[in-house]
């Protein structure tokens, strides 16, 4: 499972990252890198069983508090 995900990410490194470096698109590479690494970290964490907090939970609570007080 872990190997599978890493392979997929590796594939994208080959496909995208290397051409970016070649063409010296540093800004794009930076953005790419940040998002890429974030995604990879999350993936690893999920593999390890860490329960990542959902961004929707605070939204749900916020809506509930607004609607609850009016409705």
């Amino acid at each position, binding site marked *: 499972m872990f190997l599978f995900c890493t392979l997929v990410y590796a*594939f994208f490194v080959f496909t995208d990252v290397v051409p970016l470096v070649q063409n010296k698109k540093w800004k794009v590479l930076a953005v790419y890198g940040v998002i890429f690494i974030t995604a990879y970290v999350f993936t690893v964490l999920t593999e390890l069983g860490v329960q990542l907090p959902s961004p929707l939970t605070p939204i749900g609570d916020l809506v509930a508090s607004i609607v609850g007080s009016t409705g």
Partner: protein
Amino acid sequence: MKKALKRGRILCVLLVISLLSGCWNYREAEEMAIVSGIAVDKEKDQLLVTFEIVEIKTGNEGNVQTQLISSEGKTMLEAVRKTIKTTGKKLYFSHAKILVVSKEIAEEGIIRIIDLINRDAETRFTTNFLISREKTAKEVFEQQVVTTNILSYELSDMLTSQRDLGYAYEMPEYKFLQELAASGISPTLPTISVRRENSQSFAEISGSAVFKGDKLIGFLTGEETRILLFIKDRIEGGVLVNTMHSDDGATNISLEILDNKTKMKPYYDGENITIQIRTKTDVTLDEIGGQGDYIEKDALAALKAAFEAQLEEQIVNLVAKAQQEYKSDIFGFGRSVKMNMPEVWRAIEPRWQEMFQNVGVSVACEINIKNSSILSEPIKVGD
């Protein structure tokens, strides 16, 4: 550099593909025991579940045999999984067509049994439910098969063919759930019993079981079930039989039902509900058991009137029985009120259980005799 890139990519893809071949949810056909029917009984406080399992023997002409396996458990799923102790295979339910429940369990509440069938993704919503009139549901499965090798499938076919008789009717799971959930109608289920003749015994599907909520409270005979179907507008075929009396004596007449349409209309006078039931049946005069000429105009009219009166009486009787003996609205009178007079229904719904018993019924049956098949006269008898 470009070549190395390309090679890197291809390598990744190949590795991924090799990891992907094969599945997580891979199941060999031989590792599964295919269930065709389920019977549930009570054993002290546990459930005794019997499964009819189909075994396919390889060889000439796909020989098919069935086996019965029983297992106990506090819940349905526990019993299901415990069968692994004896079969070594996991049960596969997608082909299960029949569920037979013993009346003992049904009297306590049938939801205990059917939630698994409902919820599990493998079981199908078109599974047919039956209630066993015998002491157990299991013995139904132990009967002889007549036409095919798989008893459950045969029972399923028997249910479907009831269209031409009307003594029972198919109740697939999703329809049962609809009637159970709906306010204004109580569900019914077809019943199955064992008929013993000489030294042989057969499974027989006839009649229905009456529910109140999800608990079984009584039974209807085959004849009564047919009337129930008339009221619920679910008649698709069958026979109407009556005896006509004349100077020639008593003659038995058969009318074959071609089609029927029933209309239910509720009326409210502020206090009580009256339901007007109108049936319109197309029939053919299929059998005259004597020499009396009932095809001739006046006699035909008398015949029509007699049959209509008979049907009306039967309907009135059945409604009375449901009201007094079972106090359960199996006809959907409440639902009729809800559909036609929603405001009234909203007001009376909480009291419907009692109000149902006082509902008045006005019945009008119309029988259209379309033809007398290929004979235009009764059989002639010379000297």
